[in-house]
């Protein structure tokens, strides 16, 4: 029986974000009054990592968007995916993502922020790859993971640099010391690393290509992660760091150029798509570019415009994604050429989609119009790069108008074709989300005081770093340059919409002629990486034991030799070597002879068994040394291990053929290497013995062993009491090694059995 509304997983997934949304509402009033709320507890006190949360205008705006849109999206998913066999897993990933995203925007500690940042990366990977049977999904998921993951590592490095520069990992402290950070010698590396994180996450050019591919995810995921929330994490980071890192020339140009370029580039690609979900994906890129652009521009009006646009975009874009999801769900296609006249069949979806699309097109009295007006106004007011900023945003707005037409007017208006005549309206759980979001786009436009007071003003203060900015949203006040520009936008956009087919053909030709392709280029980079890995693995991991030994010992010899040379330790050792020999008594010489003859026999014998046994002689000689220097525990262990090794190797070698000395030619080389390593080890040991041994630990254990641990055998007391955690780690390693070896042995047996069956 199909689950009703996704079963318990369904309603839990709706109630959790809804409850969080309601919980956030209580902070609206204090934050609107300009307060910051700090909540926190120690997490890893020894490393100065706190689990602390900062609720100010910016994080509250994000928090409300994440939880509010989250509740609508999960409600939508109950119908969209409720009957999917893996639905509970989907819900788990989605809620995991939501936790990560909320943590990210609320974290006051940089390291905690990074952890949540990675949670969103990983959950995004799981969600994009949700349809794990499809190779395309898996590729897109991996691409997103690798790109944003690499950016995440850069970000971590940047955070550590920043934390050291500021002397604190708490954002609330870092935000107040912008001048010091900007003057710090590490400012440029910090900036580059932070922007690498933010640009990859928010898909800024040239890291843009993963986002359209990420649309392989189920539609609710696209609506939630890849338009309204996760991709805005990079924007959030830039906005959050603006008081600390912003306001400098490198910051300005990096953001303005990358943001502006992404804006135009993405909107051109958007109108070229035929899959409406792809159109929306590219317009999302455009929005991210615009947000980057205006945060980079950095003036109070630019920040204000960015914050308005942030809210505007989240509302309409989530609604549009959900809308196209309903269309896809009901008709089975998202191709713009095959959809026509759906308005009569799906009236509510049409209303919801139109509300959002009109807001996207920036037509009054919708909130999108206000957003666009303020973008224009801020662009025109800029002192530097005003033309570039205004120009890009104009071009983008025109194309946005056109994209809005392509994604809603085109599929919904006109006569319904025969193929779509049996289509009907989607279920209420699905259209309620886009309807609310689209409705809010209109409501916020008609009554701009609401978002101004509760969201935009506090967010602008937080990003600008001062509550001195006056935020006053209005729909229309006077005929100014921005208003005229808006009118020109509509006219141009409308003309372009009518000429869309020709423009698309032209764009297709240009794109086809362009030799630089990012997505295939990505594959080539990955292939190159794999080839490199294969090449170096082939050299280092040849599978020939002899070669492994040579590599290991050559490395060891080089390492020791360099150290001895660098420390200039050879001279005194050689001088003292003679004195060392003087101290040897008869018994020492006897053991020495014993060990040396064992070693020589190992090297010269042509029988494996003899070699193993002779190596055992060496081991027993070493055990004798331990006994002579009164370390009975070590000696016993050495003896037993030696015995068992001989048995083990002998068992393994029972079935091997007689040792053919095929490597006769290489023997001199091996002998030379052995002598070098042996000589170096000797030098190191003599050098160590010459220095004064630090006996503090030994003394402590000697004194403390009996009174504190009730044991007289210091070695054992150290193993099981003073250093029990180390021992525990070691025995865990022993178990893991044994199980791995067991798996290897059994693996070959299993293969043999299988091969036998096949024969």
């Amino acid at each position, binding site marked *: 029986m199909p689950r009703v509304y996704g079963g318990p997983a369904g309603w839990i997934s709706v109630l959790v974000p809804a409850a969080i949304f309601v919980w956030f509402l209580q902070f609206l009033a204090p934050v609107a009054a300009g307060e910051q709320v700090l909540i926190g507890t120690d997490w890893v006190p020894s490393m100065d990592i706190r689990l602390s949360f900062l609720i100010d205008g910016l994080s509250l705006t994000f928090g409300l968007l994440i939880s509010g849109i989250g509740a609508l999206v999960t409600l939508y998913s109950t119908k969209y995916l409720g009957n999917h066999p893996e639905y509970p897993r989907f819900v788990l990933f989605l809620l995991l993502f939501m936790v990560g995203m909320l943590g990210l925007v609320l974290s006051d500690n940089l390291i905690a922020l990074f952890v949540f940042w990675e949670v969103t990366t990983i959950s995004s990977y799981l969600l994009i790859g949700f349809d794990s049977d499809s190779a395309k999904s898996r590729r897109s998921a991996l691409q997103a993971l690798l790109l944003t993951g690499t950016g995440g590592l850069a970000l971590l490095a940047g955070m550590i640099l920043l934390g050291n520069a500021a002397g604190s990992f708490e954002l609330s402290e870092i935000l107040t010391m912008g001048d010091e950070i900007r003057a710090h010698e590490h400012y440029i590396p910090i900036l580059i690393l932070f922007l690498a994180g933010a640009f990859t996450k928010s898909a800024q050019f040239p890291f843009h290509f993963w986002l359209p591919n990420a649309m392989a995810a189920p539609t609710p995921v696209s609506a939630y992660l890849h338009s309204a929330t996760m991709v805005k994490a990079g924007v959030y980071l830039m906005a959050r760091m603006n008081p600390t890192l912003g306001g400098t020339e490198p910051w300005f140009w990096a953001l303005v150029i990358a943001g502006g370029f992404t804006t135009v580039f993405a909107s051109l690609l958007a109108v070229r798509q035929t899959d409406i979900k792809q159109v929306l994906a590219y317009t999302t890129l455009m929005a991210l570019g615009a947000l980057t652009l205006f945060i980079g521009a950095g003036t109070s009006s630019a920040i204000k415009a960015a914050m308005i646009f942030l809210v505007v975009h989240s509302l309409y874009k989530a609604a549009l994604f959900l809308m196209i999801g309903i269309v896809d769900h009901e008709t089975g296609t998202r191709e713009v050429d095959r959809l026509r006249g759906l308005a009569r069949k799906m009236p509510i979806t049409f209303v919801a989609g139109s509300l959002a699309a009109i807001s996207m097109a920036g037509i009054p009295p919708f909130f999108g119009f206000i957003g666009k007006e303020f973008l224009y106004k801020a662009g025109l007011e800029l002192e530097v790069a005003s033309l570039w900023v205004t120009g890009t945003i104009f071009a983008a707005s025109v194309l946005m108008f056109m994209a809005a037409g392509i994604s809603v007017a085109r599929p919904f208006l006109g006569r319904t074709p025969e193929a779509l005549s049996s289509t009907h309206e989607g279920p209420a759980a699905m259209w309620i989300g886009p309807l609310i979001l689209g409705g809010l786009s209109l409501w916020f436009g008609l009554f701009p005081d609401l978002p101004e007071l509760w969201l935009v003003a506090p967010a602008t203060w937080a990003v600008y770093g001062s509550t001195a900015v006056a935020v006053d949203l209005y729909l229309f006040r006077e005929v100014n340059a921005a208003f005229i520009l808006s009118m020109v936008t509509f006219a141009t956009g409308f003309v372009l919409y009518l000429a869309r087919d020709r423009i698309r053909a032209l764009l297709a030709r240009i794109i086809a002629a362009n030799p630089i392709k990012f997505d295939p280029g990505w594959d080539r980079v990955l292939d190159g990486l794999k080839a490199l890995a294969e090449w170096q693995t082939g050299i280092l991991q040849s599978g020939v034991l002899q070669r492994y030994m040579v590599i290991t010992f050559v490395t060891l010899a080089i390492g020791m030799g360099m150290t001895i040379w660098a420390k200039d330790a050879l001279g005194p050792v050689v001088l003292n070597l003679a004195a060392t020999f003087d101290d040897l008594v008869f018994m020492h010489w006897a053991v020495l002879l014993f060990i040396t003859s064992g070693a020589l026999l190992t090297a010269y014998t042509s029988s494996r068994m003899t070699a193993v046994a002779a190596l055992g002689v060496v081991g027993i000689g070493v055990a004798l040394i331990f006994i002579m220097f009164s370390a*009975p*525990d070590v000696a*016993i*262990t050495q003896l*037993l*291990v030696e*015995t*068992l090794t001989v*048995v*083990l190797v002998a*068992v*393994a070698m*029972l*079935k091997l053929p007689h040792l053919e000395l095929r490597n006769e030619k290489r023997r001199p080389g091996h002998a030379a290497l052995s002598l070098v390593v042996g000589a170096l080890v000797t030098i190191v040991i003599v050098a160590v013995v010459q220095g004064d041994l630090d006996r503090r630990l030994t003394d402590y254990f000697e004194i403390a062993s009996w009174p504190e*641990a*009730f*044991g*007289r*055998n210091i*070695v*054992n*007391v150290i*193993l*099981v*009491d003073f250093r*029990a*955690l180390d*021992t*525990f780690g070691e*025995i*865990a390693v*022993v*178990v893991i*090694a*044994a*199980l791995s*070896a*067991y798996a290897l*042995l*059994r693996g*070959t*047996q299993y293969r043999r059995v299988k091969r036998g069956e096949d024969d």
Partner: protein
Amino acid sequence: MVNSIILNAATRLLVALLLLFSVYMLLRGHNLPGGGFIGGLIGATGFVLYAMAHGAEPARAALRFEPQNIAMTGLGIALAAGVYAVFFGEAFFTGQWWFIGATEDDKGLPISSVLVFDIGVYLVVLGSILTLVLALEEEV
């Protein structure tokens, strides 16, 4: 498996002695040379000897449990011995001691979580080595 009457006959005596000795080494370890690691090695030697004389299959039967299970159980016991201290508000792996039957003059029989930990080590070493040796014996 080696067909040798001397080995077969000697094994009967030696295995029992080795196992007894391994436990002895384990228990005396806190004050005298020995301990879980050495004890485990000796115990393993006993079973390896048995396997060599009579074959891997009888050795497995004599062991009663799969050697990898023994190793994992040992790891679990060692962990439990470490976690135990946490319940008394002390740091992970702090030794806990009891003196059973302690009187004014006699300190009684000392039992400690440290000993439990050492038993864990013993089982890990015994189980791990036998996992390897028995699998190798059966392989070749």
